[in-house]
């Protein structure tokens, strides 16, 4: 059930969309996408939805996140004796990669962008609202599908580490260009100034003490040799009768 790869958590949830409400659901996403255009942002400045979009970015623990509407007819059917599927509801598939443990993440969403959460999930059956948080957590958890296999190209780096690294590279290039022909005696001062501007980009990455070891296999490829010693055999027999302690 490896939802984790190093610092990254893979979260998946399928939630049913109310009958006849798929259009509204799609409309919500259109609005959110529109809100990302600066012009529209300026026009709708007062609308909290826009603020929510910005806040989503600011939360900065999401690597990638997506919402996909799976219509009733979208479940593929290749014939071949396979029974087809046309479920009662259309579904919203939410899949994201984020840093931290899932409760902390959902916590933040409920606290910071409840309007955005409501807009996206209001058309979903059984959705209790982003607040109060305990009910929101329960709804999300109930509809979560655990990941069977998860790969991240940067398991030891959080989103803010990556953004910091990209900023560092950009700033370093600009600094190099700026100081290309500067007198050697003046360089150090400029370098100090540069350091100050990138001091938040110098994250140490690597395996966090509480994080998963992304290289560790979930199941070993070769079977573990059986311990045939009398004590082990007796323990096995006991386990068979009583179950794990």
């Amino acid at each position: 059930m490896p939802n984790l790869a190093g610092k990254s958590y893979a979260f998946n949830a399928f939630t049913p969309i109310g009958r006849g409400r798929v259009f509204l659901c799609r409309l919500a996403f259109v609005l959110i996408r529109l809100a990302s255009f600066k012009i529209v942002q300026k026009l709708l400045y007062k609308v909290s939805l826009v603020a929510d979009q910005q806040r989503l970015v600011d939360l900065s623990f999401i690597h990638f996140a997506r919402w996909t509407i799976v219509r009733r007819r979208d479940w593929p059917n290749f014939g071949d004796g396979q029974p087809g599927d046309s479920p009662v509801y259309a579904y919203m598939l939410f899949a994201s990669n984020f840093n931290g443990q899932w409760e902390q993440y959902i916590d933040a969403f409920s606290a910071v962008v409840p309007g955005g959460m409501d807009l996206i999930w209001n058309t979903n059956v059984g959705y209790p609202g982003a607040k109060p948080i305990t009910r929101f957590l329960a709804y999300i958890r109930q509809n979560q599908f655990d990941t069977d296999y998860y790969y991240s190209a940067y398991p030891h780096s959080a989103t803010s580490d990556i953004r910091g690294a990209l900023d560092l590279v950009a700033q370093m290039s600009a600094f190099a260009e700026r100081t290309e022909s500067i007198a050697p005696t003046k360089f150090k001062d400029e370098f100090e100034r540069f350091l100050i501007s990138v001091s938040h980009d110098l994250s140490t990455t690597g395996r966090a003490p509480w994080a998963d070891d992304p290289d560790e296999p979930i199941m070993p490829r070769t079977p573990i040799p059986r311990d045939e010693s009398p004590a082990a055999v007796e323990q096995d027999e006991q386990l068979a009768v009583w179950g794990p302690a």
Partner: protein
Amino acid sequence: MSNVFGEAYGLTTISPIIDGRTDGVHHAQELRATLARLPRGRHSPFASVSGTHTARWFVVDDLISEAYPAKEDHLNSKYLVFIADFDGALEQYVSSLVASIPEVIDSVWGHCVGYPGSSRPLAVLDYVRDCQVNTTLYFGGYPGASVENVLRALLVQREAIQFVEQTRQLPSGELQAAFRRFRDRMEKAPTPAPGSM
């Protein structure tokens, strides 16, 4: 209907799993076991499929029904969901998969109905398209950065800390020279392996 955010493409596919057993092998169970045995981290097969930011598989045994007044909802087949965030276009990524990790994708999608097998790359692309569901809203934390960009930036970040530490006491002229050497070294450094940073 946007599968693209910045430079990244978000692929979602849903593939029906072959029902029951064939030659004694229960497809859904074997599929799960296969996924559990796949190497992880830097040894992951996806580390050798260039441009892969993230990839995941999960099995949907059945839908989860909500309480009253929602209606009970079920699926007649089990499905395998594949979600990946990668650089570039879909066609080129699928051919990468087929070229780099054919045995892996065969061992996974081989349990799914209608999968043609890696020996037929064009048919695989058609298969992926048939299984694809378009993303409605896609969001990325570092748009415009490819896997290569990110890995190289993380390397610079790690080395820069060492550089700052080692050159603290240097006088200005020497610092300048050291900085130029550092940049040079960074430019020439090999990109760190995916899954290692």
